[in-house]
């Protein structure tokens, strides 16, 4: 047994992880969530902005990280719609444009259909523009230099929402949903910090520790991966009782597989160390 564990084929570990993640998905069990300070800060900022404030949301991710960033996208858009904020969408990822289309369809057009939010008036999809951080630097000074028109090729001067927006400095808040580069760090360097624009980000789990040093000076807070989304959903549920239903909260539902995944990793670390100390006790190299 000891030799089996010592030379454990990693495919057994892969199988255990598959079961730890997939069985809770099938079981659909959820756990309660408590919003932490950084998530609450983001929630409160959006809540406290006067209705009709202008928020830019940059979808800097692609399908690879939709699993982590998708639930928080829904929760943030949902909150913006509830507060009737005006929204500007863009992406700096080549493959991010369809993700914006999907979010608009699912949240603005389907879930909040009764509000009859209009493209150009209540929200504008600027789409994708190549240039990474250069685009942020450019629109910090002149939005039209990078985006003369929206995604459907309508001139920004002809859209009620954008006709008086010169650059990022005219926005009330910037939110970045960030999977890596270009992402939250570039938004801090080229927009939030130089112009003092309120800024918050939703990040992948692995990127979160790097973002902490920027709070609260350059970032209001962060939503870290599925856990951050679940906490945001919990905060939304506290304020708007309709959103306490787990069926509406993808983040909370995805925390169950994460729960068992974490326990498995802890178990593997303990097992690995047991083998390590048993080895030392036996005197084997």
């Amino acid at each position, binding site marked *: 047994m000891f030799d089996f564990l010592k030379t454990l084929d990693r495919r057994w570990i892969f199988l255990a992880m598959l079961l730890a993640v997939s069985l809770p998905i099938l079981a659909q069990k959820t756990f309660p969530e408590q919003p*932490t*300070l950084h998530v609450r800060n983001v929630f409160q900022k959006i809540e406290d902005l006067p209705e009709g404030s202008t928020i830019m949301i940059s979808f800097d991710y692609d399908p690879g990280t939709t699993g982590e960033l998708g639930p928080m996208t829904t929760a943030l858009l949902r909150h913006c719609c509830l507060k009737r904020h005006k929204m500007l969408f863009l992406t700096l990822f080549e493959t991010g444009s369809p993700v914006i289309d999907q979010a608009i369809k699912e949240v603005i057009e389907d879930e909040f259909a009764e509000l009859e939010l209009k493209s150009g008036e209540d929200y504008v999809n600027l789409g994708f523009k190549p240039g990474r951080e250069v685009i942020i630097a450019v629109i910090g000074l002149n939005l039209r230099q990078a985006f003369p028109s929206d995604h*459907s090729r309508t001139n920004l001067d002809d859209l009620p929402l954008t006709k008086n927006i010169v650059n990022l400095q005219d926005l009330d808040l910037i939110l970045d949903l960030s999977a890596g580069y270009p992402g939250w760090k570039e938004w801090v360097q080229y927009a939030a910090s130089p112009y003092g624009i309120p800024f918050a980000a939703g990040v992948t789990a692995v990127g979160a520790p790097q973002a902490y040093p920027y709070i609260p000076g350059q970032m209001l807070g962060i939503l870290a991966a599925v856990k951050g989304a679940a906490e945001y959903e919990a905060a939304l549920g506290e304020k708007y009782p309709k959103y306490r239903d787990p069926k509406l909260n993808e983040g909370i539902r995805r925390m169950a597989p994460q729960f068992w*995944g974490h326990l498995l990793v802890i178990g*593997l*670390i303990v097992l690995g160390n047991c083998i390590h100390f048993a080895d030392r006790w036996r005197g084997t190299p």
Partner: protein
Amino acid sequence: MKSTIPWLIAAATGFVMIAAYFIPAAQGWQGEVGTWFEILAAFAFVLGGANLFAYHLGKISARRAGWGYSGVTLVAFLVTLAAGMLKLGVPAPDRYPTNAWAGDFQFEGSVSWWLYWYLYNPLNATMFALLAFYVSSAAFRAFRAKNTEATVLLVTAFIVLLGRTYAGAWLTSSVPENYSALTFPGMTAIILAVGNTAGQRAIMIGIALGVAATSLKVLLGVDRSYLGSDGD
């Protein structure tokens, strides 16, 4: 001359951009230079595409290990290219009803749209999801309490792993609210906000200075190894 002229261009551009940072009228130059880089990078796509073709064709013709995958790569490349450039399945937009090519290549229902949602999306998500499996195998293999530092790392990881799920909250649910810092979520918050932040800042300062010094060496021509050869 091979490295001197590129260095002179790099140095002149670099120093002008540093000065421009302090002049309001020139702050837009950063965007201009970036746009020029993007134009260059766009041309480089042609170079990349040609190289991709040459490499995989060579591999197929030589029947080297994995040549079948090269075949799949080339077919995928050509199909995606054709679907995007020819706008296959894209209807004519309302504004230009007689010209289908004026439509968005990612229009819902088009071939590009289909490739994106039913091939690219699941493939990409699958690759990212592999991380969960690699993390678990790395945790088992490498996370050992071999010395004091490794033990500290291990204990920290243990607390954060528990603190980021309901398990941590449940295990320490009996701790009074006044002592919430002693719960797993509380300890996790402190580790991330204090220990992690301090360490990250130190690493970032080092990296920022490293970037500044390397940039300066490039601008001053002290280090030209990235240009291929130090000699002229």
